C-alpha cells in the first residue's frame, strides 16, 4: 500500500505531537452537505459531506473513483454539483468557475494542470490577479510578488522569468504551490501535489504547510501516501464509491483499518506464490549491457530469464521510466547493448520492438494518452497493436479478429457493455486491462510495464498480479516498474533498485525486504544491505 517517496526523507516530529497541539474545538467555517454529482449513469459523488476548520490539515483518503477528485472539482468551481449545498461562514455559496471559487478564498494545487507552459513563472504566479499600472501589467510589481511567493513556498531557486515549459516537473509543482499561496487563500487544497517532488522539496513543503497551518490556513490534503498523512494530518475523512464513509482524528486508526474503510472489505494483499528458482545457467531472454542514455541512464546491466519477474524500484525519477522506454526503442542515442536470446539487437522503434524477432510489449505510463484511443471502441483499441497479425495483405480478417478479441476479453475478465462501445466509458481498471489485452494478443516474450497499477482499484490490481505470474509461468520475461514497494516485494523475483540512472542494488529472495528497498533507494551504504543468494 505505502508508496515510495519521501517516507524517510522527511524529518520532523512524529505525528501525534501535532495533533495534541491543537485540541480545542474549532468552529468549521466551510461545510459541504449532501453534495451529489452524476456523469451519465455513473454516480461520482453521492450525498457527500465535508467539514473544514481553520488551522487544521484535513486529509482525504479513498481509492481512485471514490469521489475525491469530483469533490475537489465541485469545491473549486470546475463542475457544478447536481444536488447539495456549500456553506462558507454560514452563507450558502456556489461557484461558477475556478476564478469564482478562488475569489472566495479557495486555492487548489493541481498536479500539473494549471500552469501555462509558454508563459513565465512570474506571469503564471500572478495570473489570477496581476498588478496593474495604467491598465497594463506592472512587470516590476509582478516580479516582487513572484519572488515573495516563491520564497514562501521554499522555491527560491526558481527564476521568475524562466518559462514554465523549460522547467522539470518537480520545479513546476513548486511553482503551482507558490501560485496557490499568492491569493492568501483560506482553504488550500493539495491534490496528490507531492507526487513529482524530490525528497528535499517535500521536506520544505511540509515545513511551509505546517507554518501556514499555525497561521490559520485550512488545508485539504489528498494523498495515497499514508506516511505523509500520518505526519501532517489532524483530521481524516475516507471516501468510498462517492460517499463519505468515516471521519476521524488522525492517528486513531491503523493503516489496515483505513484501507478496509477505503475498499469496504477485509483486505489482505494477496500475491500469487513465487516459484522457487534454480540458478540454472539458462540463457537470459533479455539482457542489457552497459546501457546508457544522456545523463538519465548510466551503465545499466542486468539480465532477465524466461519466467522471471524483474522489478524496478527506487525513488521517482531515477531512470526507471527511461530504462523501459530505452528497451522499447523510443529513445535515441543509447549506448551499450541489448541482447535478445543472446543475440545483440538494435531496436529503433516500438515497431521493431514488437516484431517477431524481439517480441516485446510495453504497457505505458499514462493509459489515457499513451495506451488507448479513448474515443475509439474497445474492439478497435484491442486489435490496434496486432493489425499486422490480423490482416492478410493489408486486409483485416474479421473472423480472426473477433475470435482473438473474445479470447482476450474472457482471459482478462474485462467488464464492458460490449466491444463496440467507446473505451473512454470504461472504468480505469478495465481500461488498463484493455491496454494489457491489446499487447497479450501478440503473445509477447518480454513484457515491460510502466507503473501498471497506478490509479487502479484494488480488485483489478489483484487480477493483474495473478495475470503477471501466470504469464511468467508460461515463459514470458517481465520487467515491471512500480512505485508501490509492497507490489515489488509481492510480485517480483528480483528487484533492481535505481538511483540516479544506475542500478545500485539487486535484491532477491530473503534480501528483498522493505528495509532493503528503502535503504537502496536512498543509496545508503552498501555494506548495510544484505543480498541473500538462494
Amino acid at each position, binding site marked *: 500500500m505505502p508508496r515510495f517517496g519521501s517516507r524517510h526523507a522527511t524529518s520532523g516530529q512524529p505525528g501525534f505531537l501535532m495533533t495534541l497541539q491543537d485540541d480545542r474545538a474549532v468552529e468549521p467555517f466551510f461545510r459541504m452537505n449532501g453534495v451529489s454529482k452524476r456523469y451519465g449513469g455513473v454516480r461520482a459523488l453521492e450525498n457527500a459531506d465535508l467539514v473544514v476548520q481553520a488551522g487544521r490539515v484535513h486529509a482525504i483518503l479513498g481509492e481512485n473513483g471514490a469521489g475525491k*477528485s469530483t469533490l475537489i472539482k465541485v469545491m473549486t468551481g470546475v463542475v457544478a454539483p447536481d444536488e447539495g449545498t456549500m456553506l462558507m461562514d454560514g452563507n450558502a455559496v456556489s461557484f461558477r468557475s475556478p476564478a469564482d471559487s478562488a475569489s472566495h478564498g479557495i486555492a487548489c494545487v493541481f498536479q500539473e494542470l494549471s500552469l501555462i507552459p509558454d508563459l513565465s513563472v512570474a506571469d503564471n504566479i500572478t495570473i489570477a490577479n496581476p498588478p496593474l499600472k495604467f491598465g497594463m501589467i506592472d512587470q516590476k510589481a509582478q516580479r516582487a510578488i513572484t519572488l515573495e511567493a516563491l520564497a514562501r513556498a521554499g522555491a527560491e531557486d526558481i527564476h521568475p522569468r524562466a518559462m514554465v515549459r523549460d522547467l522539470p516537473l518537480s520545479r513546476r509543482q513548486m511553482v503551482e504551490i507558490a501560485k496557490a499561496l499568492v491569493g492568501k487563500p483560506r482553504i488550500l487544497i493539495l491534490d496528490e501535489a507531492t507526487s513529482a517532488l524530490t525528497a528535499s522539496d517535500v521536506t520544505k513543503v511540509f515545513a511551509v504547510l505546517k507554518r501556514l497551518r499555525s497561521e490559520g490556513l485550512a488545508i485539504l490534503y489528498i494523498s495515497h501516501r499514508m506516511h505523509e498523512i500520518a505526519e501532517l494530518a489532524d483530521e481524516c475523512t475516507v471516501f468510498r464509491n462517492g460517499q463519505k464513509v468515516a471521519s476521524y482524528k488522525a492517528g486513531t486508526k491503523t493503516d489496515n483499518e483505513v484501507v478496509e474503510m477505503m475498499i469496504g472489505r477485509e483486505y489482505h494483499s494477496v500475491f500469487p506464490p513465487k516459484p522457487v528458482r534454480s540458478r540454472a545457467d539458462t540463457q537470459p531472454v533479455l539482457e542489457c549491457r552497459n546501457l546508457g542514455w544522456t545523463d538519465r541512464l548510466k551503465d545499466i546491466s542486468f539480465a532477465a530469464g524466461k519466467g522471471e519477474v524483474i522489478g524496478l524500484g527506487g525513488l521517482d525519477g531515477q531512470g526507471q521510466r527511461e530504462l523501459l522506454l530505452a528497451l522499447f526503442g523510443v529513445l535515441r542515442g543509447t549506448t551499450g547493448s541489448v541482447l535478445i536470446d543472446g543475440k545483440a539487437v538494435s531496436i529503433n*522503434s516500438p515497431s521493431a520492438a514488437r516484431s517477431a524477432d524481439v517480441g516485446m510489449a510495453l504497457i505505458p505510463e499514462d493509459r489515457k*494518452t499513451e495506451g488507448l484511443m479513448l*474515443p475509439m471502441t474497445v474492439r478497435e483499441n484491442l486489435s490496434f497493436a496486432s493489425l499486422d497479425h490480423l490482416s492478410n495483405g493489408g486486409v483485416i480478417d474479421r473472423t480472426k479478429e473477433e475470435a482473438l478479441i473474445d479470447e482476450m476479453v474472457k482471459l482478462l475478465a474485462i467488464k464492458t457493455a460490449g466491444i463496440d462501445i467507446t473505451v*473512454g466509458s470504461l472504468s480505469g481498471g478495465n481500461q488498463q486491462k484493455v491496454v494489457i489485452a491489446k499487447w497479450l494478443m501478440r503473445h509477447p516474450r518480454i513484457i515491460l510495464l510502466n507503473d501498471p497499477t497506478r490509479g487502479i482499484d484494488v480488485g483489478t490490481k489483484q487480477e493483474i498480479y495473478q495475470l503477471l505470474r501466470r504469464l511468467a509461468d508460461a515463459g514470458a520475461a517481465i520487467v515491471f516498474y512500480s512505485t508501490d514497494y509492497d507490489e515489488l516485494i509481492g510480485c517480483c523475483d528480483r528487484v533492481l533498485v535505481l538511483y540516479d540512472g544506475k542500478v545500485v542494488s539487486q535484491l532477491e529472495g530473503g534480501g528483498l525486504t522493505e528495509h532493503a528497498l528503502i535503504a537502496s533507494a536512498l543509496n545508503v551504504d552498501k555494506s548495510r544491505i544484505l543480498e541473500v543468494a538462494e
Partner: protein
Amino acid sequence: MSEISDHPAASRARVPAFLRKVDPAVATAFGCIILLLVVGSIYSSNFLSPDYLVQQLKVASFLGITAAGMMLVILLGHIDLSVPWVMTMGAMMACAMAGYGTTGHVLAIPFGVFCGALFGLINGFGVAYLRIPSMIITLATNVVAQGLMVLYTGGFSPQDSAPPAVRWLATGFIIPGVPNAILVWAAVSALMVFLFARTAFGRSVYGIGNSERAAYLSGVNTRWIVMTAFVISGALSAFSGVLVAGYASKAAQSMGDAYLLPSIAAVVLGGTSILGGKGSYLGTIAGVILITLLQSILSVMQMPEAGRQIIYGVVIVSMLLLYGRSPATR
C-alpha cells in the same frame, strides 16, 4: 485524476443500437440535400429532372475525388492546401504527355497521377518525418507546383488539349445514361470505403488521428502511414484535375482554385472532425453533393458572384452551427 469518465460517450452508450449507428452529422447533411432539392424545385421545375440530377452528380464527381483525398488527410488531423496547383499540374502534365504519340496517350493519365503522387510524397515526408505543420508545407508546395506550371506554360494558357482517353473518362458513357465520371467517383469511393472499413491502413489512420502518440507506442509505423496518406491525397487531386481537363477538353490556369475550399467544406460538412480521428466517408459523399447542389442552385438562379459567395459562406456557417460545434467545457 478522476476515475469516473465524464466522457459524453458514457451517455451515448445508452442510445439504442440502430440509432447509434447513424452519425447525426451525416443525417443532417442528407437532410440538407433534400431541402436544397426542394428549394431548387420551387425555383425551377427542371431541378428535379433526372437529366439535371445526373449532370449534378457528374460535376460532383470531380469535387468528390478531391474530397476523398482531403478526407484521408483531415482524418489524420492534417490538411492539404496544395490541392489547387497539384490538380492543375496533374491536368497539364497529362495533356502534355498526350502530345507524345500513342505511348504518350497511354501514359497520360498515369503520368498526371504520378506527378500528383510525387508532390504528395514531398508533403508527406515534410509532415511525417520533418514534423513541419501540414498547413504550411502544403502551402509551400502549392506555390512550388504553381511555379513549375508557370514555367512550363511560359505564363500562357496551356495549349495541349486533353487526350481522347481522358475526355472519354470524364464525359463518355459505359452505361447508357450514367456518365463515366460518376462511375469513376463510385469506384474511388468504393476503394475508400474498403480502405477505411476493412484494411489495417484505414484502421491505423483513425487511430493516428485520435492519438499519434498512442498509435506510435502500439508499434504502428505512424510516420509511414501519414506520408502515404499524403501521397494518396496528391494522387487523387491530380487524378481529379485530369478528369476536369477531360471535361473541359483542356487544362486551364487556376482551374484548381475552385476546388480547395469546397473540398475542405465538403469533408467537414459531412461530419468529419477537422481535428482528426472521427468521420465517415458516407458523410463526405453527402457533403460533396450538398456543396455541388448549392453551387448549382445559385448558378441556376443566376445569382451574381457576390451573392453566391455570401450565400455559400452563410450556408456553411449555419450548418456548422447546427452540428459542427465543439462541446462546451463545462
